C-alpha cells in the first residue's frame, strides 16, 4: 500500500446534516482546544458567533431547509484560527459575498416599525472574520475565513 503523502489533518473536522439543531449541537460541542492549541475565550466566542451565522445561512438558504451535508474544518494558525465550510447547496447570490451592511436604524421618532429583524448575520461575520473568500468548485460551495483575537475582542 502506498504511503499517503498528505499529513493527517490535525484540526477540527465535522460533517453535519444541515439542520438547526445539528448546528446548535456542533456549536455547543466546539472544543476549547484545537490541534493542541487552546483557544482564547474571545476567539472561542467569536468562532461560535460566526459559525452560527455561516452554518445557519447554509441550512436556510443554501439547502433551503431541505437538508444536506455541511463539512466544517477549523485549523489553528499563527494568531487565530482558519475555517473552511463546504456544502453542496445553492451558491451565494451572484456567487459573491454579501456586503453585510447593517440595516439602517430608523429615526426613533418614527416608531419601531422600521426596525430591522434581519440582515444581521453577514454584518457579524464581516465584523469578526477576516480574509473571507467564497469559491464555487465543481458544484460545491467553499467558504474560507480567519478569526484573529484582535478582531474578535
Amino acid at each position, binding site marked *: 500500500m502506498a504511503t499517503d503523502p498528505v499529513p493527517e489533518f490535525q484540526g477540527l473536522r465535522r460533517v453535519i446534516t444541515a439542520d*438547526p*439543531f445539528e*448546528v*446548535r449541537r456542533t*456549536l*455547543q460541542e466546539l472544543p476549547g482546544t484545537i490541534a493542541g492549541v487552546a483557544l482564547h475565550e474571545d476567539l472561542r*466566542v467569536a468562532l*461560535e*458567533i460566526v459559525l*452560527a*451565522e455561516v452554518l*445557519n445561512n447554509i*441550512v*436556510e438558504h443554501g439547502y433551503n431547509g431541505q437538508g444536506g451535508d455541511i463539512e466544517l474544518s477549523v485549523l489553528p494558525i499563527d494568531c487565530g484560527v482558519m475555517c473552511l465550510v463546504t456544502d453542496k447547496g445553492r451558491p451565494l447570490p451572484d456567487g459573491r459575498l454579501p456586503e453585510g451592511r*447593517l440595516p439602517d*436604524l430608523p429615526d426613533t421618532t418614527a*416608531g*419601531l*416599525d422600521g*426596525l*430591522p*429583524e*434581519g440582515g*444581521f*448575520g453577514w*454584518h*457579524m461575520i464581516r*465584523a*469578526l472574520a477576516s480574509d473571507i473568500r467564497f469559491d464555487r468548485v465543481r458544484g460545491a460551495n467553499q467558504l474560507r475565513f480567519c478569526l484573529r483575537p484582535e478582531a474578535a475582542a
Partner: protein
Amino acid sequence: MQISCEETGGAMVARVCEDRVDAAVALRFKERMREILQNPSERIVLDLSQVGFLDSSGLGAVVAVMKLAGPERRLELAGLTPTVQKVFRLTRMDQVFTIHPGVPQAGRGDGH
C-alpha cells in the same frame, strides 16, 4: 421554549429559561412571547440572564417581539450575558433597547 413570567414592582418580567435563543427556536420564542404579551402590563422586562447564546435569528425575534409589544409599551432587556451582549453591540441593537445590567427581583421595586 420555557419562559416564566412574574409581576414585580409594576413590571412584568419574562425570564427565558433556556441556554440558547437561536435559529432552532427563534420562531417558538416569538410565539411564546406573543402569548405573554396578552398580559396588559405597561412595562415588560425580558430577563436573558440564563441565555448564554443568541444568534441573528434570535436577535431578529427579540426585535420582532419589541414591535409586537409597541408602540405604547416598550420591551426592556435585562441580564445580558457576555456573548449576548456582544451580539447586541456588534449589531448596534444595544442603542435601540433599554438594557438593565441587573435582573429585576421580586420585592425590589422596578429593577433599576
